[in-house]
């Protein structure tokens, strides 16, 4: 049992996973052509960054890193609410979700 619990995983692996998730989010942001999926890619980037915050909080035994993730989650929730409302407003004005056809600031 104690050998199970003392098994080690280097923290750099967590950081690499976090970097990979962030990069996949950037790729999604660039290649996806649907407004909602582009928005989901942004959430993926936020999650990747959150993982590196938690990893460094573990590294330095600091609680504030985890609290920062908590704030990021709150901001992400607010952002999701406003962003999806904007998407609904855009869809109502343009009747499309394709980012190529939403190329004017004016609704």
């Amino acid at each position, binding site marked *: 049992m104690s050998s199970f619990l003392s098994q080690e995983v280097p923290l750099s692996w967590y950081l690499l996973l976090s970097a990979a998730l*962030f990069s996949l989010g950037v790729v999604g942001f660039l290649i996806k052509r649907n407004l909602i999926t582009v928005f989901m890619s942004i959430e993926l980037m936020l999650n990747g960054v959150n993982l590196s915050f938690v990893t460094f*909080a573990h590294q330095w035994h600091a609680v504030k890193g985890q609290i920062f993730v908590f*704030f990021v*989650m709150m901001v992400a929730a607010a952002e999701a609410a406003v962003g999806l409302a904007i998407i609904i407003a855009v869809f109502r004005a343009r009747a499309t979700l394709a980012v190529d056809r939403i190329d004017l600031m004016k609704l």
Partner: protein
Amino acid sequence: MHLILFIVFAGFCLAGAINLLLQSHPINSALSLIVVMTSLAVLYLMLGAEFLAVAQVIVYAGAIMVLFTFVVMLLNAGREDRTLGSRAARRVGFPAVVAILAVIATVILHAQGLGVARLSDGITTTEELSAVLFTKLLLPFEVTSVLILIAILGAVALASHGDGNGERTGGK
């Protein structure tokens, strides 16, 4: 044990993220994103962040993704069509992203003094977290409640009909 758990859930994370990119229907992307977020919750737990693991499931996988799937269904979003724009973005974007990832990975792999994670490291209890959150960081915490309130008002204002004589007055 830790290694197996990390490999399994990191694999779920990456597979979900890649599936998010490959799927052309938004609802499939949303479901893969839920897989990513739930696996991340397990990884948070392995790093000792018990409160964040729970919050991740409730806030992200629960609230935010329900909002996403709700909007996908409300707008009846169909498959996305590949256009010229996506090809151009792919040609320029992929090398840039690979370069960014290579730089970050090099920095991480050469970083000195990065520790290791063990399951026996113990967890940061919610009590420790809240002791700091509600004393030293009370003001930012209260400010975020104002932020959430403004976001709610903004969302309602944006999503309601802008012309003022919509369905609310029944004059449609």
